[in-house]
């Protein structure tokens, strides 16, 4: 059952005017947050699309879209209108039903992640005590949508893309999960809200290696450069959504950015102490951190080439997974040995450990793959 804690959230912080004995408070809370999440997500996705295009433009010494509205701020709106007016094409030999459902299956899980993201202290739809587990579970569902899309198109390029995606996401779930467990160990809880409240110093300092692994695997999860193999514009021409147009394509496009937003929000929550911060209101802090993380993602996209599929797999299994395991092990020891942690000692210790481990792995880790005799 979704727990509702009247001490939290709205009532104590944001919209504090609501009395705790408001009639039907559970449904009110639910309804309110559904609206907040949808508005927040859609508005932020628009902002992200604009931000990414402009930011990428500036990284590439050009301007980016600046025609629609002041500073081109309405560009995402114009894009949306354009894309909705396009003809909806279903491949003649495609599987129509699956083709129709695929965008929904891909989009819904991305949106569902936001149910457990705390925007402020307690301001979240459902403060699940297994919040982070829920996120891991839900976010991996969208790969089904991607595969459905690729399968239903009856197109070889999209099938290659989907095969890559499935392999990729399944592999990267593992280091991703392990790096989260490190955070959960220190926080002593799986609830997103409690993870934030227990961050007196951001966990990025306590878990630097965990952050690195999470960031990399998250990039792979949401198919961003350098792991955008399933789209790989220059190789397989946008992979799974090659045959999609109109509204359905918009759903995929949206899902991609919702996922990016979700990942930024999760990183903020797990590693950057969520809404916490001095002076500014908590919600603003949350937003600033999300945008910063997203900027890092855009920045990486603007610089780095794509890696190859065999290298991608090798990287997950030979580099990230062992590192994540070692990180987990060390974190476990730290939690047991130092129950009352001396934070700054651990910060420096962990930074040193990260440096040593990364250097060690750089030395010995080799990516297999190369020419295959045929």
């Amino acid at each position, binding site marked *: 059952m979704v727990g509702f804690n009247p001490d939290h959230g709205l009532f104590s912080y944001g919209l504090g005017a609501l009395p705790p004995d408001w009639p039907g408070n559970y449904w009110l809370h639910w309804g309110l947050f559904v609206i907040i999440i949808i508005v927040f997500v859609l508005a932020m996705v628009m902002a992200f699309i604009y931000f990414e295009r402009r930011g990428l433009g500036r*990284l590439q010494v050009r301007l980016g879209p600046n025609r629609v509205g002041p500073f081109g701020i309405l560009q995402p709106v114009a894009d949306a209108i354009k894309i909705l007016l396009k003809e909806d094409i279903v491949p003649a030999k495609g599987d129509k039903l699956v083709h129709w459902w695929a965008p929904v299956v891909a989009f819904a899980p991305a949106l569902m992640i936001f149910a457990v993201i705390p925007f402020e202290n307690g301001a979240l739809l459902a403060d699940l005590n297994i919040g982070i587990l829920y996120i891991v579970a839900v976010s991996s569902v969208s790969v089904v949508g991607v595969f459905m899309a690729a399968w239903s198109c009856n197109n070889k390029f999209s099938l290659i893309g989907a095969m890559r995606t499935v392999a990729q996401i399944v592999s990267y779930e593992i280091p991703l999960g392990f790096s989260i467990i490190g955070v959960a160990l220190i926080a002593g809880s799986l609830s997103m809200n409690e993870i934030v409240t227990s961050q007196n110093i951001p966990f990025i300092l306590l878990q630097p290696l965990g952050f690195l692994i999470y960031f990399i695997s998250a990039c792979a999860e949401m198919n961003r450069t350098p792991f955008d193999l399933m789209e790989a514009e220059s190789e397989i021409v946008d992979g799974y959504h090659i045959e999609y147009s109109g509204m359905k394509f918009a759903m995929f496009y949206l899902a991609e950015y919702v996922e990016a937003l979700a990942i930024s929000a999760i990183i903020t929550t797990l590693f950057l102490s969520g809404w916490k911060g001095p002076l500014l209101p908590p919600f603003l802090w949350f937003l600033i951190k999300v945008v910063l993380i997203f900027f890092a993602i855009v920045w990486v996209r603007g610089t780095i080439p794509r890696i190859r599929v065999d290298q991608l797999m090798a990287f997950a299994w030979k580099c990230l997974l062992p590192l994540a395991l070692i990180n987990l092990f060390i974190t476990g020891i730290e939690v047991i040995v130092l129950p009352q942690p001396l934070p700054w000692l651990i910060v420096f210790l962990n930074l040193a450990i990260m440096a040593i481990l990364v250097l060690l792995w750089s030395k010995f*880790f080799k990516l297999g793959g190369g020419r295959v005799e045929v």
Partner: protein
Amino acid sequence: MRFERYGIGIAKGMALTFKHLFRKPITTQYPEERLTVSRRARGNELIWDKELCVACTACARACPHGCIEMVTSKGADDKRIVDKFQLDTGRCIFCGLCVEACPKECLFIGCGYEKATYRRQELVLGKEDLLLSDRKQPSGYARPKVEATLPEQTMLLNRKQYLDRVKKWLD
């Protein structure tokens, strides 16, 4: 992938792209901001000075595509007159050979370049369309006299704001 350099290569690239965030974009905001074309620009039009023309048809013969059509006849005082002078700009490749071939320097290539039309027929320019007028700017291509009167070309290389920023890190 072996991180023999411990990711320094990636870091270097990231630093460079970050640096570019603070450089001035090189984009030209086209319809509002127009660059001055070269003095010798070969735009998408031909300009014909009817008064000087002696109807020798050198231009039509020089054209590699045969898209200039000139029909002449003998006039009253033994002068040749141009009856028909037609250019199909849809087929013209703006190589400028006709302008170079003109012995009387009465044919110019124009600087204008916004010549899109909705119909193909409109691309075929007749005698009247080719005449010299105030709305057309003859270019200095093969016409040194005209060239000297034209303004200097805007070049990315010389763009001030841009170069100032470049200079800072070049020195």
